[in-house]
């Protein structure tokens, strides 16, 4: 990837997901050269991991909020990320 490619750790969820979707579309459409395809695939894997981490962090925050609003310790309701 070029030096101008944004660092994944600094990307918002929306930006990472948009780039990931673009990568998937390019790979499925055969728009990537053979030589570049593995590097692009690997960036896609890192973007997916970054998005997963952000979703898990958001889910954990929602669980915490649910606990506070219930006022009891009786279970949590994880966010449906679908």
């Amino acid at each position, binding site marked *: 990837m070029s030096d101008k490619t944004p660092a994944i750790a600094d990307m918002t969820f929306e930006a990472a997901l948009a780039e990931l979707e673009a990568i*998937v579309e390019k*790979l*499925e*459409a*055969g*728009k*990537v*050269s*053979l*030589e*570049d*395809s*593995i590097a692009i*695939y*690997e960036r896609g*894997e890192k973007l997916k991991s970054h998005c997963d981490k952000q979703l898990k962090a958001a889910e954990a925050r929602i669980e915490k909020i649910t606990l506070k609003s219930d006022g009891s310790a009786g279970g949590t309701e994880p966010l449906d990320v679908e």
Partner: protein
Amino acid sequence: MSTLLLHHDVFTEHEPPQGHPERADRMRAVERILSHPHFEDLRREEAPMGQRAQALLVHPEDYVHAIEQSSPTEGEIALDPDTWMNASTLEAAYRAVGAGTRAVDAVMNMEVNNAFCAVRPPGHHAETARAMGFCVFGSISIAAHYAREAYDLDRVAVVDFDVHHGNGTQDMFWANEDLFFGSTHQMPLFPGTGAVSETGEGNIFNAPLSAGDGGEVFREAMLSRIFPALDAFQPDLILISAGFDAHERDPLGSLKLKEEDFAWVTLRLMDLAAKHCDGRIVSMLEGGYDLAGLSSSVGVHVKALMHGTGEASQPVDEDEY
């Protein structure tokens, strides 16, 4: 048993620009491993020039003419972002075609049991009218069509275990139920094709694998999807698109195959060839971009072809790299 090796110096003279992964050093690594005493019983021949009429079995005349006209007298020209020609590429591409057709002649005439074509450029990405993915002519597809035409064979199969899907072979086999194409490959990855749903006339069998998959998943894909279909097809000849870039060391793929997996698939294909077609196999080199992984994998593959035993899974001179 006897095995024919087709090779030629021109396969080290086709050279894309510096830094390109499909480089002449690949062929030097293959030639070096096959010069080991383990391979002294190989019958060796220089690959002859393929004929224009053979290329025309799968490519339109306009395309062949354009490739011939593109051949530079010096320097390199790009046919696409991946695929380059220098002054030796046209001859190398035609000798890759000639290697495949000569190998077909040798196994059909029972001069040898099987053959390995140590060729480059590779061929399985070249479509009917489009050079791509380092490939100029669809060498293995040409060999399949040639075998049917020259020897009146009813059914010819290609099994492709390169890490990239053999879109070109699939393209050339798509509408012909007498030609079988079975492929394992990483997906998603270049060239984007190779889904299970791509079945042609019921003669295409794709078994996509995921990044990180190793020998166990690869063998299960072969056992559950490719081999039963190939067995039912009852081939008169089996061709192998032998790409070794699914090796765990390869920089252009993320599968984790080891030498023993390449030996295993070769031996199982030999079993099916023994059952259906008197052991007739022609194998052609496709990808493989880590020199150590490529040469040791070629070593076990050719040892398997020569000896037909599990001992083939032991790499040759693995400490040398």
